[in-house]
């Protein structure tokens, strides 16, 4: 089976998920180009309903909602993608190290992680952002801090069993260095559960980021983002319900994307459901 077949074909859930992901990536990459208006540009007709000029209407100071939704998605998704990439990298290094090396180092790291697990994720995120101050780099750092322990644990489990397999022993007996065994003979075999977990972490990160922004702890204005848009729209919700429904739908769509993708991956890669 070629790599492409293994990851792509023959699974409706997977195809739908990839299609949804493609639209999210397009918004992230080309958001500022697609948006019909400047998202910060105000106009005279505020809180207008949908028109041919403004498909989703305008907000309380006359900014085009659709443009804000697209550009806001760019901010939200960019933070999410970068932060989760960082968390996955750290989780892989930490999990691989703990699982492969084992012994005292493993015990110490795992006990430290137990401490992190005691905090409710969202509460920890709030505390870290409150300490660091809300800015894009700090939000990325916060997400990485909060989710790295979870990913490390997901990596460590399979590493513990794979490192006892025969091919590892064989590699060692022909003199392959421990580092190369870990990265070339163990790592490729644990990719499946990590991919599924990455997708789930992306879904959770969308929640955490938008929820933090909803509470006013997100990326600073004037750049729009979904969480802050939803929160601001509550003030005039009876007058402009679309201003609430728009970001709400966007958040649900993004979360759904990664859940669908995770399920598709799980089915495709035959990872046991947790």
């Amino acid at each position: 089976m070629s790599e492409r077949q293994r990851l792509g074909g023959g699974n409706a859930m997977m195809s739908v998920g990839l299609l949804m992901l493609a639209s999210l990536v397009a918004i992230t990459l080309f958001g500022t180009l697609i948006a019909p208006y400047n998202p910060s540009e105000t106009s005279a007709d505020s809180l207008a309903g949908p028109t041919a000029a403004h498909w989703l209407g305008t907000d309380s100071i006359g900014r085009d909602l659709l443009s804000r939704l697209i550009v806001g998605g760019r901010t939200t998704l960019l933070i999410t993608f970068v932060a989760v990439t960082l968390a996955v990298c750290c989780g892989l290094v930490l999990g691989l190290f703990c699982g492969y090396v084992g012994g005292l180092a493993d015990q110490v790291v795992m006990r430290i992680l137990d401490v992190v697990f005691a905090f409710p994720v969202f509460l920890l995120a709030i505390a870290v952002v409150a300490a660091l101050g809300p800015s894009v780099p700090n939000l990325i750092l916060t997400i990485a801090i909060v989710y790295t322990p979870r990913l490390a644990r997901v990596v460590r489990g399979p590493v513990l069993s794979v490192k006892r397999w025969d091919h590892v022993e064989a590699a060692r007996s022909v003199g392959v260095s421990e580092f190369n065994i870990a990265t070339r003979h163990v790592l490729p075999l644990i990719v499946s559960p990590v991919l599924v977990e990455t997708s789930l972490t992306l879904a959770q990160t969308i929640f955490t980021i938008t929820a933090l922004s909803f509470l006013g702890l997100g990326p600073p204005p004037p750049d729009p983002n979904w969480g802050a848009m939803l929160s601001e729209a509550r003030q005039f919700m009876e007058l402009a319900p679309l201003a609430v429904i728009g970001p709400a739908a966007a958040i649900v769509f993004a979360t759904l994307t990664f859940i669908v993708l995770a399920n598709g991956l799980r089915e495709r890669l035959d990872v046991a459901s947790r």
Partner: protein
Amino acid sequence: MRRLVLIRLAWMLPILLGVSVVAFVLMRALPGDFAQASAGTTELAPEALNIIRRDMGLDRPVWEQYLRWLGKLLKGDFGDSFTTHKPVLGELLPRLAVTAELTLIAGLMAMAMGASSGLASARWRGRTDWLVRGINGLFLAVPNFVVATLIVLLAGLYFPEVGIFNYTPFLTDPLGNLGSMLLPAFSLALAVSVTISENTRAAVLEVSSQDFVMVARAKGLRPSTILWQYLVRNALTPIITVTGLQLASLLGGSILIETIFTIPGMGQYLFDAVSGRNYPVVQAIVLVAATIVLLVNVLVDVAYARVDARVSYE
């Protein structure tokens, strides 16, 4: 049994100690000066700042500061709020009670919704199963604060007579209090119920494929007897575990829900503290929440052992 509880509780101590270190470091690693933050102003003479520092013991080595802080903590002294200058504990407890009530109602709701839909899904399979899982998949993707905002929107548009922001304290009007908690608890419970539902379904299906269930069927027991006496009882373990483990997300979510529905609980207290840079309050809430999560994890373990005789921690 008692030994199990004791061992579990003893295990909590080192983790709690770690939690306290994290909480301490989080607040001392702040950008800027802790003394300045506590005074609430940046325009203080250096002499005045030095006096505050000495009063708070900030001129001593970090480990000594930590031990002093920990000692006070053990006596129930969480420090004074920066804004009201009253002990944090006294302000926190009544709010904690409100959050505990909200979380409890939401937890029960999630359990009822999740267990019944999961059971229905596993019992009837076919179209019911398909429907439940489809709805579950969708609801899993709707964050609790989005649910809450949409409920507020719907109520505002179509049911203006329903007062959704009318929080009533339990002591003045117990029934009214419960009523005012229903919608917030529902928004909190929805996503959690999905997890419970999926786990219930999986657990019941797993049990129903086991030999003793087949024997029960073969000897002609009624399907309802099999369902309640065999399947549900055995599926209880995962349901309890999952509900317990979801407590952390219920507690985290209550911050958002309380802010949206203006319920004067711990979440709203935290929100105000974060916006007002009231660090002792943030610290106290983080500590209390982590302790609750740890305690509930112990309870889950114990409940697990009670329900399932195969589990032993000897």
